[in-house]
């Protein structure tokens, strides 16, 4: 690469890097620095080293149960979302008005404001007057408590996440499918491959890059889920939907304990980072060897 090329590269990357630095890296660095400070009182907040982290690890059962809930949420929601997105992409690829209408329909949930969506779901899942229970009643199923049950609340949040995100990630898979050269399919058809074989042997392997991106990005999304918890369950019942970001929010703005909040956010960031690296490595090993 010539020096002119590298200058051009820097120039093109600069706007994105500046925005990334300002809106992502700077806040992350600030939060890391703040996590090393003490409890906010009337006085300026003092440097306390790793005391906030020590508290989280050794004395804070609420944090650990929140970690468990978040892991459960992400581990279940992520693969279901990716599988649903991939399935939709297979079903809805191709040309034609009807298909493009259906694609739009599937994409729509991700275009709706998160809070509006959560409120509407809340109304539908209301245990006493909600639409969901009146449908179940017609089908002869007894009414369900949904968000007010420790056994069902997290499942409801997962369902909502899949509903909202599957259509969004479907678009990435569709774009990935578009980029697979037609010749590969033609050649395999000449060799007598069925469409099922084409899907397994050609489409999915060639979607490897898209797949690893979608997996990583979607898992990250799930780890930092906040709005549905805030609007629908407030972490309850009995902490069963108390995702990390909500606990961090509460710590900062309800318990006025920003040190604990920042320590939790920093640990979440670290966790997501490690998980992403592992996922990327696994995805490469699986699809590129």
């Amino acid at each position, binding site marked *: 690469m010539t020096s002119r090329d590298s200058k051009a590269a820097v120039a093109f990357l600069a706007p994105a890097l500046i925005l990334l630095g300002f809106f992502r890296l700077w806040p992350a660095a600030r939060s890391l620095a703040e996590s090393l400070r003490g409890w906010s*009182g*009337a006085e300026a907040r003092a440097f306390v080293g790793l005391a906030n982290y020590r508290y989280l690890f050794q004395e804070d*059962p*609420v944090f650990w149960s929140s970690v468990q809930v978040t892991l459960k949420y992400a581990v279940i929601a992520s693969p279901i979302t990716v599988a649903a997105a991939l399935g939709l992409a297979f079903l809805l690829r191709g040309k034609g008005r009807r298909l493009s209408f259906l694609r739009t329909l599937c994409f729509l949930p991700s275009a709706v404001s998160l809070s509006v969506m959560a409120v509407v779901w809340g109304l539908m899942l209301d*245990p006493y007057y909600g639409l969901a229970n009146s449908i179940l009643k017609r089908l002869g199923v007894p*009414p369900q*408590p949904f968000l007010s049950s420790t056994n069902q609340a997290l499942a409801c949040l997962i369902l909502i996440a899949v509903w909202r995100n599957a259509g969004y990630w479907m678009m990435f898979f569709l774009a990935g499918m578009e980029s697979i050269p037609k010749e590969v399919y033609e050649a395999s058809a000449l060799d007598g491959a069925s469409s099922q074989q084409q899907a397994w042997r050609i489409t999915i392997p060639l979607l490897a890059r898209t797949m690893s991106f979608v997996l990583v990005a979607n898992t990250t999304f799930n780890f930092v889920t906040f709005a549905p918890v805030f609007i629908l369950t407030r972490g309850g*019942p*009995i902490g069963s939907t108390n995702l990390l970001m909500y606990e961090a929010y509460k710590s900062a703005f309800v*318990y006025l304990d920003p040190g604990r909040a920042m320590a939790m956010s920093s640990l979440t960031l670290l966790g997501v980072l490690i998980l992403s690296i592992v996922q990327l490595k696994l995805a490469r090993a699986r699809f590129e060897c």
Partner: protein
Amino acid sequence: MRRFTALIIAAAALVAVSAPAIGATTLEVVWMGWPKNLVDMQLEDFRRANPDIVLDVQLVPFNQLFQTLEVRLASGRPPDVFIVDGPMTASYAERGYLMPLDAHLDSRELSQWFPASVEACRYKGKLYTLPYATSSVGLYFNKDIFRRYNVELLPEDPGHRLAWEQVAEIAKRLTIDASGDGQPEVWGLIIEQCDRPYQVVPFAESKGGRPLSPDGTTSEGYVNSPAFVEAATFYWKLFNDWKVSPKGIMQAPIAREYFGNGKAAMMLGAEWNIAQLRNFSDSEFGLSPHPYFAGGRALTPTGGWHVGISSKTAKRDAALRFAKYITGHDAVATWAKLFGNAPARRDVYASMKDVFANPMWQTLIYEMEKTASPRPVTPGYLEYESVLKEAFSSIQYGADPAAALDSAAKQIDRELRKYR
């Protein structure tokens, strides 16, 4: 070109219409999310009398009010005037969010409010807020439901209170599941603010519990004391054992809908329901004094909304004028009529004798004078309330009362450390 000119004129006209009068001060007010039409009616006089002040009143729903205030007050541009839940005075004052008001009110003005309400406005000897309303709680009941199921009506005279144990028995008789689907058509008892310490802590206080250490910085041994655990166990039984109360009804307006529409026979509710229940004209309601535990203390929740001025406001005069108006006789009397909060001013009770002669009001005025027990004074009230609220919500959903309160005590004490 002509179209372009027209566009410019239209834009200029729009700016002219939407901009406030020249020289006017815009006062930003964060207020409780009461119905906007009522708040506007109450503010009509102020707007007319103060054309130089433009009010930007932001009504925030109760459930989001305290978090919204936290974010706004910590920012560089807080609202000029804001509503303060009485016990939050210490918290905001401790953090320097409130302007001290001693210099701006004389003793004659202060003497209009109840001494207890003024006391709740002070922190470390300084006056930081002005009382807007106070409150009390009693046991409302639907006389039609009692008659339908042949249950004797509750006593309604001041001071003649039932024990919680009796109320539980009545609630069991009046929890009616005729269809047998496990979802009663009528619940025995609904608690209006069923997870808020305001209404829940008095259960424990009646058993002899104390909400917090006298210096307001320790909860271990208080919120998990035997009295608290016993009271919380009674509360747990209401939802999980006797199943006389519906789970998950955490918002007061929804609880009121349940009760008003005959889906609950009794409601532990605050004084504003005297006015609010008029919206449900199909049933006849009564009010029995706040129950207590047999052999325990009789006491009732109290305290209420205050008004504070931001220490950072650049519009001190306008803010003071507004704060004095909204806590003054006329605005408070209007609000007592429109919404029904208990005034914290003597002169309003004197000027609205016809309203307060109502037997329900008489019962609650008796409680405010004789049995009212204010919430604990601590700069960490927000943390205390929030953690305890979650604990009671968990207990309601079935968590073990002792374990939930132990965990709450630990968490509260961590958060209160910053004030020691």
